[in-house]
Structures are given as structure tokens and as C-alpha cells.
């Protein structure tokens, strides 16, 4: 499998435009001067070292956080001006962690994703969409289990199902694969790509750069709150840039069989390891 190309039938329109976005919290600059477009029909991966501002940027794109400077617009309309109910019909967010106060069943949690469509024509398809979402996130077998009794990876997939059931145009996924096994990592990101192919926009925060290379149409590399590079994986995932951003030697090689990009840290022998600076 080579780097994914979007189906030709999918037109790409820009849904979100971030211009010169900056976020300052307690005088610390978390984000600065970020320009980014989020388009339908493609998967955009946000990568970068810890503390680079990935989750903060995701929060800004989700409308959770109003940037200290710059603007975020949904097709010309200020994101902050979109009502909370309307926003819920446009974008869905998968947070890194879902803590549930009460022991709802998985199916109830996924049903919650349908709430934004209550009272609209789409509510007629609630059950169908919930079933599809359960299946797509591979949690159909867990449907009647209580959410708190699930493992970390199962919780992540159940929450992913909730976001799918919400049917947003824009899916914002914060490290959806962090707790998942290899099969489900591939499965969830394939589902995300499927959504993009169906005409949605997907933004996904990832730590695994090989996953980003395999599943993203564009990759945005964040470093110290700014964008170090944005573009197709083949252009952006480049050893010099990554080694600089991650402050660790990184190799990018082609898979001997499939030709996929593999991003690998160069490993020093244990006795050569120096303390982190």
C-alpha cells in the first residue's frame, strides 16, 4: 500500500481555516502563529513531540478554546459564533480519555452521540446509525457491557463509536490509537479514512509517525507551539526535519515489501544513552 490517495470523486472543500492562531496560558505561549486549513475528503494528522501544542490546537479547532490571537473560521463564519447545538452537528471530538461518572452501557454511550440530531429528520435513522457505529468501531459485541468495566482500548473504541454515531462533518480525534492493539489501530484509522473518503474532514493527533504516514493525506508537524511543516506524508516526513523536531535521530525508510513509509527512531546501545537534556 502506498501513501493513500483520496478517491478522485471526493471534492475537497475547506471547512475550518485557522489564521495566525496563538494561545497563551498563564503567560506561557502554547501555540503561536499557526495557519492551518482543514478540508473535507482528507485525513490531516497532527504530530509532534510532547508539549508541542497538538491537543491545544485540537481544542481550538473543536471550538473548546477561543485562541488568544488569530482567528478560526468555519467557512467564513467565526467558530466562536456557532451555537453549541449547531456545532455538535458539525464536529465530533474524541478526547484522549473518557471518564464516565455513571456506569452506562456501551450502547447507551454510543446513543448519546445521536443527541445533536434530536428533533431533526435524521433522528429517524438513530438505531441504524448506532448499529453501524458499533460495528465500525468493533464494539458491537460489547454493546450491553457497562462502560467502566471495559479495558482502556475498548473504552477508546466505544468512544470512537460515539463520535461516528454523531455523524459530524468534521471528526477531531485526539490520539485515538494510543491504547489500541495493532489490529484495532489499523481498523480505527481505516474507519477514519473511510469517513474522509465519504466526504468528511478528519483531524487526528498521532504519536506513531508510521501510522501517520500510512493513513494521513496531510501531516502537520508541530514543534514548540508552531507549525514546522504541513503537507503530504512523503514531503513532510523527512529525516532531517523529524530529527530536528524530536531532538532524536530519526530514519525514514520504505517498507521492503509494501513500499510504505516507515519512521523509526535510531536506537543507541544502552551504555551510550545519555540523560535527556
Amino acid at each position: 500500500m502506498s501513501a493513500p490517495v483520496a478517491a478522485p470523486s471526493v471534492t475537497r472543500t475547506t471547512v475550518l481555516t485557522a489564521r495566525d492562531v496563538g494561545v497563551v496560558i498563564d503567560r506561557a505561549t502554547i501555540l503561536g502563529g499557526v495557519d492551518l486549513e482543514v478540508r473535507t475528503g482528507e485525513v490531516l494528522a497532527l504530530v509532534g513531540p510532547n508539549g508541542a501544542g497538538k491537543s491545544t490546537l485540537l481544542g481550538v479547532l473543536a471550538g473548546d478554546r477561543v485562541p488568544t490571537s488569530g482567528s478560526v473560521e468555519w467557512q467564513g463564519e467565526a467558530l466562536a459564533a456557532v451555537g453549541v447545538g449547531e456545532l455538535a452537528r458539525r464536529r465530533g471530538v474524541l478526547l484522549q480519555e473518557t471518564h464516565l461518572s455513571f456506569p452506562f452501557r456501551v450502547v447507551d454511550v454510543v446513543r448519546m452521540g445521536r443527541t445533536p440530531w434530536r428533533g431533526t429528520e435524521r433522528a429517524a435513522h438513530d438505531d441504524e446509525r448506532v448499529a453501524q457505529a458499533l460495528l465500525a468501531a468493533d464494539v458491537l459485541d460489547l454493546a450491553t457491557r457497562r462502560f467502566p468495566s471495559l479495558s482502556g482500548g475498548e473504552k477508546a473504541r466505544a468512544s470512537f463509536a460515539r463520535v461516528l454515531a454523531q455523524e459530524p462533518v468534521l471528526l477531531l480525534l485526539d490520539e485515538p490509537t494510543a491504547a489500541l492493539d495493532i489490529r484495532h489501530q489499523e481498523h480505527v484509522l481505516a474507519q477514519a479514512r473511510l469517513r474522509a473518503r465519504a466526504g468528511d474532514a478528519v483531524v487526528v493527533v498521532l504519536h506513531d509517525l508510521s501510522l501517520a504516514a500510512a493513513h494521513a493525506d496531510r501531516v502537520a508537524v508541530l514543534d514548540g507551539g508552531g507549525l514546522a511543516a504541513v503537507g503530504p506524508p512523503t514531503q513532510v516526513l523527512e529525516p532531517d526535519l523529524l530529527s530536528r523536531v524530536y531532538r532524536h535521530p530519526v530514519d525514514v525508510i520504505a517498507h521492503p515489501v509494501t513500499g510504505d513509509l516507515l519512521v523509526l527512531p535510531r536506537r543507541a546501545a544502552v551504555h551510550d544513552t545519555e540523560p535527556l537534556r
Partner: protein
Amino acid sequence: MTPTAPPRDAVEDTSPASAADTASAAALAAVRAADGPAVLPPARPARATALFVVLTLALVVLALVSAGLGQLSIPPDQVLGSVLHRIGLDLGPVPSHPNGDAALWTIRFPRVVMAMAVGAALATAGALMQGVFGNPLAEPGVVGVSSGAAVAACSTIVFGISFLGPWTIAVAAFVGGLVTTFLVYGLARSGGRTEVVTLVLTGVAVNAVCGAALALLTFLGDTQAREQIVFWQLGSLNGTRWPYVAVVAPLVLAGIAGAVLLARRLDLLSLGERAARHLGVDVERLRVVSIVVVALLTAAAVAFCGIIAFVGLVVPHLVRMAVGPGHRVLVPASALGGAVLLLAADLVARTAVPYADLPIGMLTALVGGPFFFWLIRRTRRSAGGWA
């Protein structure tokens, strides 16, 4: 729907890029063919309906029995007959005792109705509060809202304030409850969550301050006011008359209606504040409205019957164990369950010791205290610590 939203059914039309994609698309098609809804478990368990039926029956039977028991004993069929005759139906026997009808309508029935109203109010307030705090240990009595309402209500007695007639006490209790709820909410939350330790300790602090205020009021008041305050702290339905019921019942009905309207949003809030907002909940508004409703319900319960603790803790918890945590069932079922519980507790309070009317708050605390402790232990275990 936004005008820009692409068609939803494009899933199968895409060019297959990988095996995973094709498999998923095929699986989706399979669910569609198999008529998706069929594989889903029902949104509302059948047990919920059963619970409503059982609780309603229990409430009716208990009300008839409770109204008949006391120094002047009237069999349940005569109680029922008396009610039916009052509403114009010539069915069933009327009370055979010459004073039976009078005893029922002037003493027993107001008390029975008050017990139901107060029980429903407390249990609903508990369910609501637990939903807003995201914590199964929140309850008006435990966190000090009841004491706050009591302080304000007692002040009107001690200082002889009565500008709103019989409503004065209820209004004062509402204001006191409202202030305390906001206070507890503000103090006990951090980072969008309420930890068990913080909540319980906040309750200790608030109850301590309110206890001090009540002590001061007891000190300031004359003998009659003192007696009333002491009585209040114990909680009792003794001496309930129709005018009191006329104040409490509308408040309780309004509060329960409000709580039912909030139920769906409370479900979403259990995902956490951020996730709830992502699903379209105006969290700030939900919070404020819920707190006002909690204060309203608590005030209605406290205004004439004093502090009756733990009902709001025990009832929603039992309901959750029976039918799960969904608030659309939990809230009305808690209201019913609270009515049943307090009616039963009042029956015991009236009849356990001959010629004595035990304080009902004492009874609920006697049962509720150990239950609270068990709940704390359980929460601690399931949460993996005191968080």
C-alpha cells in the same frame, strides 16, 4: 444540517483502497441488510417499566395502609372508600368510626401527602445533584444544602419575619438552599470534576458552619422558637396541615418536572463537561438551572419538615442498581421511590412506639448513615482510591 455537509451515503461508492476499507464497507452493508435496529438492545430496559408499576402500586397500598394506622385505626378499604366518596364516587365502605372521616381528612391525609411530596423532593434532588456533580455521593443533606436552607428558614422564625405569609419560610429556605448549593458547587469542584474527598469534606465544613448558625439562632430565640428549631434539626412530619401541603406540593411538582426536563442532558454530562459540550449541551446553563431546581426541591422538603437526610442518597442509588444510570428513568423513578420510602419511614415513626411520634430525620439517618458508609467504601474501591 449545514449546507456544506456531503451526502452520507457515499460510503459504499468509494474506491476500495485497502482490505480493511472493503471489509468495513461490506460489514456496514451487512448490518444495513440485516436491518440495523434489530441487533441493538433496547434503549430502555423492560425492567424500568416493571419498576414504575411496582413503585406506583407500593405507593398506593402504603398510602391507604398508612392513612388507616394510628391511635384511631381505620381499615384500608374504608380509607379507600372515604377517598372515593370525596371525589364523588359512591363506592366502597365509609369509615365506620364516627370521627374516622374527620381524622383522615384533617390529620392523616395531609401528612401522607406531605410524606410523599417531601420524599419525592429529596430523592429527586439527590438524583439531580449526583448528576450535576458527577458524583454518586452528592446529596442535599450530606453536602449541607439542607442545613443551609434550615438556617435561612429558622431565621424567619427567630426574627419573626413573615412578609409573605405561609410562603415566607419556603422562600427563605429556597434562598438559603440556593446560596449553599452554589457555595458547595464552587468549593468542591476543581478541573471540571468533584472528587469524593473534596465533596464530603466540603459537606463537613458547610454543615459545621450551618450548625453554628443554628446554634446561634437557638441561643437568640425565645423558648417557642427554640423548640421549633430543635424539632427542625431532627426532622418531622408531625403537625402537617393542608396549608403547608399547599405550599410544598406545587414546588415539588415544579421541581420534579424541571428535573425530568434536564434528564437527557444530565446523561450527556456524565461523559464529562467537555464531551457534553461537544454533543451540544450548554454546560454552564445546565449547571445553573440544575442547582436552582435542587435548591427548589430541597427548600420544599425543608420548609415545614426540617432536615431529613440520606433519602436523596439511598433512593437514586437503589434505582440505579435496579435499572441503570439513565436519568430519564432515574429521575421519575427516584421521585416515586422517595415518596414510597418516606411514607414507609413516617409510618414507622408514627407507630413504632405507642403514643410517640419519633423524629423521622432520626430514622432516615439511622438507616442512611451506614448505607452512606458502605457507598463510600464501594466508591473508593471502584474508583481505585479516594478520587
